[in-house]
């Protein structure tokens, strides 16, 4: 969960232990398909992102068409269809963060990272996104770095956070 793995995954397949977990998740729902989102989360953690091959593989685990899995993957924002950087930096640009200076935070990140929102640094370190409300408006401006919420951002704090991302 904590860091997105960048190790190349040549074959798209879960381990035996993971397949046991898939079956456990499927059994939690009246219809096994309820486990599709959780299993896609597992796939992303394991393979780094959800490739078309990963969609096809997950489809076989649910006896669903790859088209259905593709429709689901592309509907949600948290599934990456290309390999993201080792860290994902997602800055909220919704209203409360905007009022607290999110545009300045975004400009600072653009300058420091040398990329636009939606892009990944050339060294594969950071994928930079702007996102809608993460519901931490009391600590605006804020962003999510991988699993963590980073709150009450200032340019100095941003530099410190970026410096800690290997």
């Amino acid at each position, binding site marked *: 969960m904590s860091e997105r793995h960048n190790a190349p995954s040549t074959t798209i397949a879960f381990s035996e232990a993971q397949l046991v977990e898939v079956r456990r998740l499927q059994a939690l729902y*009246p219809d096994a398909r309820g486990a*599709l*989102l959780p299993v896609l989360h597992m796939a992303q953690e394991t393979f780094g992102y959800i490739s078309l091959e990963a969609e096809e593989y997950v489809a076989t685990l649910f006896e669903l068409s790859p088209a259905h899995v593709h429709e689901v993957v592309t509907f949600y924002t*948290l599934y990456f269809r290309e390999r993201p950087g080792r860290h994902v930096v997602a800055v909220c640009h919704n209203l*409360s963060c905007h*009022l*607290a200076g999110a545009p300045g935070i975004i400009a600072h990140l653009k300058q420091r990272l040398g990329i636009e929102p939606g892009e990944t640094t050339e060294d594969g370190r950071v994928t930079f996104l702007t996102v809608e409300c993460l519901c931490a*408006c009391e600590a*605006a401006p804020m962003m999510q770095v991988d699993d963590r919420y980073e709150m009450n951002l200032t340019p100095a704090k941003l530099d410190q956070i970026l410096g800690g991302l290997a």
Partner: protein
Amino acid sequence: MSGEAILTRNFGRSDSHTIRAYVETGGYQGWRKAQAMEPTAIIDEVKRANLRGLGGAGFPTGTKWSFIPKNHTGPVYLVINADEGEPGTFKDRYLLERDPHALIEGMLIAARAINSATAFVYIRGEYVEPWRRFSTAVREAYEAGHLGRGLDIVVHRGAGAYICGEETGLISSLEGKKGWPKLKPPFPAIKGAFGAPTIVNNVETLSHVPHIINRGAAWFAGLGTKTQGGTRMYSVSGRVARPAVYETSVGITLRQLIYDRAGGVTGNGRLKAVVPGGSSAAILTADEIDVTMDVDGLKNAGTMAGSAGVIVMDETVSIPEALMVVARFYAHESCGQCTPCRESTGWIYKMTRRIVERRGQKDDLDTILDVAKRGAGTTICAFYDGAVGPYISYIEKFRAEFEALIPHA
């Protein structure tokens, strides 16, 4: 105005999320009491408490529970909407992280009331820490024997989509599909998750239930207004001195909330406007804040209590720019199912953007109002109506500010 802390009473404790802290402060007493009550008695108690849904719609909770068909023999599901996403709202994050057992206890009581043996808690995917905290609390509740003896809880993570906070969109997503809302009727209480009767309740709503059973409907009803009982957690943010969650009676006025609780406007500036119930609520001007913050008080003021996300704007704020930011959100989050919403949210965002960039056309404001009004009420879910609230109110109440940006207006 009472500032009684009920839901937030333990928030000052660093161990408030643990079962030990919860039990020490009276936790699971409501469930003990409820186990000796008939399901209909539980529903009656919640009805008399005037508990209203606190996720956004404000529907009476006990009444919702009573819609489960009486003679139904198959499974009934309880689904918790922890897909908090309404801009300006952050209360459920606090509850999941700091008092997860209140929700679990509320779920035990609600499940008994509607005769459900399986409950799903749908937590937005971005809420990783709340998800961990809540999952740990569920394990504690199993170990303590509260769960697994009539009720099982499945904790489910979403994957990023505001529309999944709409209850039928949430059900679609829980079923392993994209989060498209469903046509009503049938309502979820008749045919919901996996085709079974389902009650979808918000985190905060159910967190109130143990206290209602413990201390009685009359006590809870007495905390609020005539038509809505209790306290609720107001998320206050924006240009305000002390942005935070404030728990208070729903009878508080918006003025009291901003000035007495949240410390007033940032830097003692002048108030310009307030969004009282999350970004889908119509905006109020500085002259319109002497309203009570209950569901009906705000409805009568032409806006809505929604999720109680209060966003404060002072005179430094550009209203057209604020609308552009809000319009970008609705354009991004429209699920694309209904044509009026899919097309209008994108179009209106483009128009607000060109107005802010001083490239607006003479008719843009009237076009936005016309498009907004034509689409309202024509879609499957309330998402587009929620977008229309800000489109119309920002422009109608601050029209001169928009016109000043439009060349030749």
